């Protein structure tokens, strides 16, 4: 895993981020809004939003975000693992006017935790806050849930460009932290093979599981 994240020790990161969530909650619009930003969508070369790259440079560290949109319809649910394997971050999107889509997010979280442990950084986005009047998912419920699973919750609107950039930026920073931890662990393992749990900073109850998993993955 570490090979993917750090590009040969140059301090560059390659992160894979998947967008998960039911169809029509606005995944595609979110990613388009984020990547387009200043440019209109003619700017995107092949006019396809299923896979987009975004280059960031945070405090001198170069990050290449590969953002994978996934098919949200229920009938494609079983294909999830094909898409989200090896990803560093996941953004789980629901529509605040649609209670069902929030339930879907819960299912996805459960599945991701099961399949990837806590290797993956999670963000939950309640999209379409421009339709606040029709809200069906209470703010407290959503935020409480996000906290309980160690995810960060954002209230977004792809239409009005609310919190989209913050969402991706925050996730990127967390993924960087996670990657740095892994590097440090790796370094520690080289010097002394024991005491694997010392460097955990992130507040996540599942965290202790991470080191053992990743050291197997770092080949």
């Amino acid at each position, binding site marked *: 895993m570490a*090979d993917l994240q750090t590009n040969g020790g140059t301090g560059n990161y390659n992160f894979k981020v998947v967008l998960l969530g039911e169809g029509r909650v606005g995944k595609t619009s979110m990613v388009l809004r984020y990547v387009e930003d200043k440019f209109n969508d*003619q700017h995107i070369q092949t*006019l396809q*939003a299923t896979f987009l*790259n975004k280059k960031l440079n*945070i405090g001198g560290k170069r990050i290449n975000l590969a953002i994978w949109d996934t098919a949200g319809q229920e009938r*494609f649910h079983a294909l999830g693992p*094909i898409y989200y394997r090896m990803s560093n971050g996941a953004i789980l999107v629901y529509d605040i006017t649609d209670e069902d889509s929030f339930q879907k997010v819960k299912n996805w979280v459960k599945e991701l935790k099961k399949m990837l442990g806590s290797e993956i950084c999670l963000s939950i986005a309640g999209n379409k806050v421009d339709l606040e009047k029709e809200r069906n998912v209470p703010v407290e419920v959503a935020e409480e849930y996000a906290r309980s699973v160690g995810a960060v919750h954002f209230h977004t609107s792809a239409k009005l460009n609310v919190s989209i950039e913050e969402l991706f930026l925050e996730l990127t920073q967390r993924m960087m932290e996670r990657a740095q931890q892994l590097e440090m662990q790796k370094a520690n393992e080289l010097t002394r093979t024991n005491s694997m749990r010392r460097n955990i900073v992130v507040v996540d109850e599942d965290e202790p599981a991470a080191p053992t998993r990743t050291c197997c993955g770092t080949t």
Partner: protein
Amino acid sequence: MESNYDEDLSDNVFFQVLQNEFGALFERATLEGWIICVPRAGSMPKYALTTNDFFSHILIPNDELPETHFRTLNDKDVKINNRVLFVESEVGTTFSSHVLFEETFYSEDMLKYKVLCVESPLQQYCDGVRAESGITTVLTLRDCIDLLWTESCKEVLERMDDCISLFLTTNERLEFLPLQDQKDLVGGLYTKCLQIALKDDRLREKTSSNRYLLDNVKVSVESYVHHGIYKKLIKGITGCTAYEDASFNKIVRNLSDIQLRDLNIGAEFQSVIPKARSELRRVEGYSTVVGKVGCLRKTVTAISCQDSASSQTGSALAADELLPMLVFLVIKSGLPNWIAHLTYMKEFSYSSSNYHANQHSFLVTSLEAAITYIKDDFLVGPMEPESQLAYQEYDRPEDELSSEDEKPSGPGVTLLTSLFEAAKKGEEDEVKRILEQHETHSASSLEGLNLCHPLCSCDKCEKQLSYTMCNMAPTVNSCDDRGFTVLHIAAMYGQARVVDALLRMGAKPEKSDYKGSTALHYSCARGHQNTVLLLIHSGVKLNPVDNERNTPLHLAAANGHETCIKALLYYTEQTGIEFDPNLTNNHGDTPLHNAARWGYTNIVQALLEYGASPFVGNKRKQTPLDLAHNMHLLEVLSNPFRTAGPATPVNISLKNISVAAASTSQLDFSDERVDASPTIKLGVRPNSTDGIRKVERVLRAIMYGDVRLACFYLSIEPSSGDSEHQSCHPLCSCKLKRDESSSNAVGTKAKEPMNINVCDSDGMTPLHMASKCGRAELVKLLIDAKADVNVCTLNGMSPLHLACLNQRHRVAAVLLETHLCSIDAKDNFGNTALHYCCQNSNSKLVTLLLSYTPRIDIRNNDGKTPLDEAKEILSLTIIQLLTEYCLKD
């Protein structure tokens, strides 16, 4: 242009100078949110980098159109469109530069600014020298070779060639190894070649400073290796994935009628399908992973092309649309080894593993997802062609509006629809109910309609039409606007009970729809063995051709329905019907071509056993051997006469088929039948050519009245009561001797006594034949030898039926004496034995039958009771007999 170009801007001289020497300008730009353009490394002339140069590379967004229109600090207009920067120069001419990538910077205090890396400087230099484009993207094999050629020297390529040919000779059996071993070996070769390339001084020097070039070199070397060993490697991979590919093909072939709407894909994608599909089909032709993935990329681009055509703003292609489109295209692509190609792309890409999250892996993953989706049978239910039926209904209202005048719509059409619906769902009773509606109406009217052309509007026809409006109940042979009869529908959905009922109601199994396909075609294409068996046993032609000259065998072979193939082949063997498995369709393909193309090894084997030739060329001069794409298949095809190995398993499976055949006849099809015989009993079919021949001999003997010979064949004592039959058959000099011979190993015929209930292809058992030909004494013998008196032919006729039909009074008496006969049994025409007696006005037989208290109220398929039959031919004695019988009751 595809830009996977990347460089670390912190190493870019231009950017460094801007940050360090023009700090104030840089700060201002970041604070104001201006965009900084950085020419890629090496594109800027060394002498430049004056203030003006920086001014021309900082863009201030336009107030009105901040997305696309900008102004540089030295007052030039700049437009950005589709990743190209257009700069208006002083003289009014514009020049352009590609945007290679965009990088969003966040400083320590989270101040955000944007940097565009551009291909060439935005300032024209007077000497007009523009640095040559140093950006090579390796997307094709050609690019790869060019790159290696220009960046290194000829020797490198030659040394790699040597390495590859050495690899090929040392690993001659590469294709027979397991996949992981192949992967490791090829990986080793790649590493070796990359070492050779990087040993070259020039290349080593360049790549050490340019990571981007290094990546490209890696990809190039890998592609060169792929190309060198592709022929061998792909053989090995297809060998490993042969089984998976065959089962995948079977699913794909059976979904081949799928429509866009089955996958919920909008009609706007219709226009891009041909282009996208032809792009995707080319996957096969590329020998490198890079090429294949490039092909996927082109496919995706082709799919997204529809947007630019239909709307200016262009709604982007979302994953929700891409995935179903790929599923659709894979199904329609017609490639026989998708799994192998996918495995190749997934497993044999060594260089790109380091950028795992890139577009390359996204494309491969998308293909994998599409293939998994198909493979896991997610496409069931509405995706089957049955959905087309539903569309027909959607489409219909419009058609009807336009053709209301000439088309008798209303109850007839809807009844037909509901009849088809019932047949589809296997609601046998409903089908019968609807069909009987017709019978209760007057029968003649529909004929008028059938004779008349639908468009004809002469007075006579109009009159007839309006008359027939009253009775539009569909008959068993009514067809809809595609020429489907209800039998087609039932066969298509494998509703064996319905098919059976329909055949008994007199449906014509040979009838073809407008595509020329018979019910047998549809049954075979969809793999419904039960219906196939019922249809072939009803005596249809086995090799009808549709408009494309496909026989049912072609369709079953193309769709991988092994059971149907074996049913057909076995049936021909059993009945000795002349059957040519080498018929060609419009493309010149034989069934063996189809089976070989899609990799169904078992079917290929079965076809070869039955005389299919692997050397027939189709119209493209391809033999089945040429089409076979995996080694197992090639082996089977190139040794068609190696009988010992494969022959036995095939024979075993054929035996299973015969069990299946028997079990279909035991299916409880016959709710309609009278209580006395709730199930039809068919005779036992022999399962070898030898057996068939023996049955034929027995029946012939009976027909010619050679009772003793028949008895010999059936190994029953010629007679227990009649002394004249005590002696042996002339062929056998004495009884003892025969016994000897029967115990003799050579005399297998006698050793294995023939089942007394054997039958031929029409279901005729010896008892049937004896009854038909009036061999009363043999009938008695057969019954004594425990022959079944209620066994039926394929027409549902019992021996009693045949006896009555052929007016064999003595035989009928013998049969009835057993008291085992179900006297009220109906045959496929709905007739009881009494019906036949009445039809023949044989009062003697009627008297005989009546003494065994039959039911006389049974109606046949024409709705007639025996009494009706008698009245029709004005047979007064019988009418009297029947009325008396009625009264007596």
